[in-house]
């Protein structure tokens, strides 16, 4: 068991390495992945100011914009990565190695987290410096717990998506495209999800971003009671989602891999 643990840990580090190093060696991502998305965040801030919304709404936008970085990393940095690796021919080599598939995906996630975290941090700094957002950090431990649980659930979902790419190619790519904007909407990326009403809000809470964002906003801006449900329930939802997605991802990866190998589609490129 120790041998397997060490093997998988090395695999995580190995797979994260090119992501981190690649970002330093091709720094144009700073413009495309950090500066450009700030424009969307800024636009929403000005919309709320024009509508004379409470100042906390600017904070809502900043938090949503920062979490968007992680959602983008889940969709494109993890799920779709297997599509590119299939086209590049690296997927064959990865599927032949003795470490677990989850370790490879965790490595991808860890490597992508570096850029995503940097983007999130820049968004928050801009919010604080340019837009004068003030966060209440009195419940920082709970905030960190919510953040970690959201990440676990989100990346578990990302692994589930990644399994689709083992079997499909461009179809899964299109699904990624389809998911981006609807999830932005239903998770309340730039507005409190309570605006949908209790029932719809709860349904949308199946997407980890929804309860995660809502809980973080309640903790950071307690003066503005715009939460969907109490934070402790959202923490419970995130914990359950995290476990469900992790288990589902593990099974889906195995199932999709077996199906792809049976049908001979695992290494078919330009699908």
């Amino acid at each position: 068991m120790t041998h397997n643990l060490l093997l998988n840990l090395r695999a995580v580090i190995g797979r994260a390495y090119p992501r981190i190093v690649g970002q330093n060696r091709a720094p144009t991502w700073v413009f495309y992945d950090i500066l450009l998305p700030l424009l969307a965040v800024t636009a929403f801030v000005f919309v709320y100011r024009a509508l004379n919304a409470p100042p906390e709404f600017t904070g809502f936008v900043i938090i949503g914009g920062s979490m968007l970085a992680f959602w983008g990393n889940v969709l494109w940095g993890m799920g779709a990565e297997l599509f590119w690796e299939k086209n590049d021919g690296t997927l064959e080599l990865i599927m032949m190695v003795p470490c677990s598939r989850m370790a490879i995906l965790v490595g991808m996630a860890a490597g992508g987290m570096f850029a995503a975290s940097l983007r999130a941090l820049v968004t928050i700094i801009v919010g604080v410096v340019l837009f004068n957002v003030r966060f209440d950090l009195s419940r920082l431990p709970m905030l960190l717990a919510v953040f970690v649980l959201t990440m676990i659930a989100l990346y578990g979902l990302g692994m589930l998506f990644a399994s689709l790419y083992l079997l499909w190619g461009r179809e899964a790519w299109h699904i990624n495209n389809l998911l981006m904007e609807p999830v932005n909407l239903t998770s309340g990326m730039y507005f409190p999800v309570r605006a949908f009403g209790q029932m719809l809000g709860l349904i949308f809470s199946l997407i980890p971003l929804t309860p995660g964002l809502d809980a973080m906003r309640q903790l950071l801006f307690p003066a503005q009671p715009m939460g969907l449900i109490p934070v402790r329930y959202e923490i419970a939802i995130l914990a359950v989602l995290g476990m469900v997605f992790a288990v589902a991802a593990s099974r889906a990866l195995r199932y999709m891999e077996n199906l792809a190998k049976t049908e001979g589609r695992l290494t078919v490129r330009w699908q």
Partner: protein
Amino acid sequence: MDEMSTQAYGQPLAIEARNVRRVFKVKPTKSQPAKETIALDGVDLQVRSGELFGLLGPNGAGKTTLIKILVTLLYPTSGQALVDGFDVVTQAQAVRERIAMVSGGETSGFGLLTVREQLWMFSQFYGVSSTVAAQRADELLKVVGLWDERDRKVHTLSTGMRQRMNLCRGLMSDPKILFLDEPTLGLDVGVARDIRAYIRQWISEKPGRTILLTTHYMQEADELCDRVAIIDQGRILICDTPAAIKRQSRQATYFQIITEPLNGTEVTLCGLPGVVSCQSRLVDMGTELRITLADDGAIAHVVGSITGQGKRILALQKVEPTLEDVFVETVGRRFGDDTQPAA
């Protein structure tokens, strides 16, 4: 581990395929009905531990399909495949710990990493410690002549350099069984020679190392392999040492003839008594013919036919049969002629 796969010629088996079939189903489209392609049609194969085994066949013969099954990338439709005694379907993890694969024309990896970083990264997927990985990478890079390029980014490498790096990548985990799928494909003569030399060196360094090499370069198989299997249309046709395979062809004799340009009239030679087959190609001086005869005496008919057309014979020699000759005899066409039978 499968007990039955230990014995062949008293030596353990590194690779064994038992009646392996692989059928690909193509889904129907608007213009085409559903169809099935039989890529492997009951392949039986045994590769001994320590052997450098060649799998020879034209494009589409089933070589890569068989390799993909053996390296756990594809399931057989029926039959069983074992690598180092482990079933490739039910014991895939054990198989993966013991193997590596290098393919010709491989463009895998990450262009922004340096050569050393690339090798280190792949070694991590096999659980090799960083210290051992660094040492091994340095040794391998020196052996294949890439030491000076160790800090170059992968996307700046030439094709030959890249393939040498790929070979190093395959060896980083010190596999027990190495699968080489057309490793010299598209490489120039010098680089291909270096790679072949290193392959020979690698297998001889440690007992128990086994290589399964697929190629459609007959000379490569002849030069490198202890035993060769010729595969075509998903079936193993012959399996033996290159010398034994060529001896099978001694029932025929081979002549190489260079003539003035025949301009297509060489097709008439195949109808002559005693002529088994005739391949031709244009060369600088004219037409080069490689003729298979049932007996030496039939050469007189060939010479007579050529001179009867008013063409001069510039060179004529009797040659040893090659693996390609055996292939043509067995299959009825050259390696390059996927649809045309020999003239």
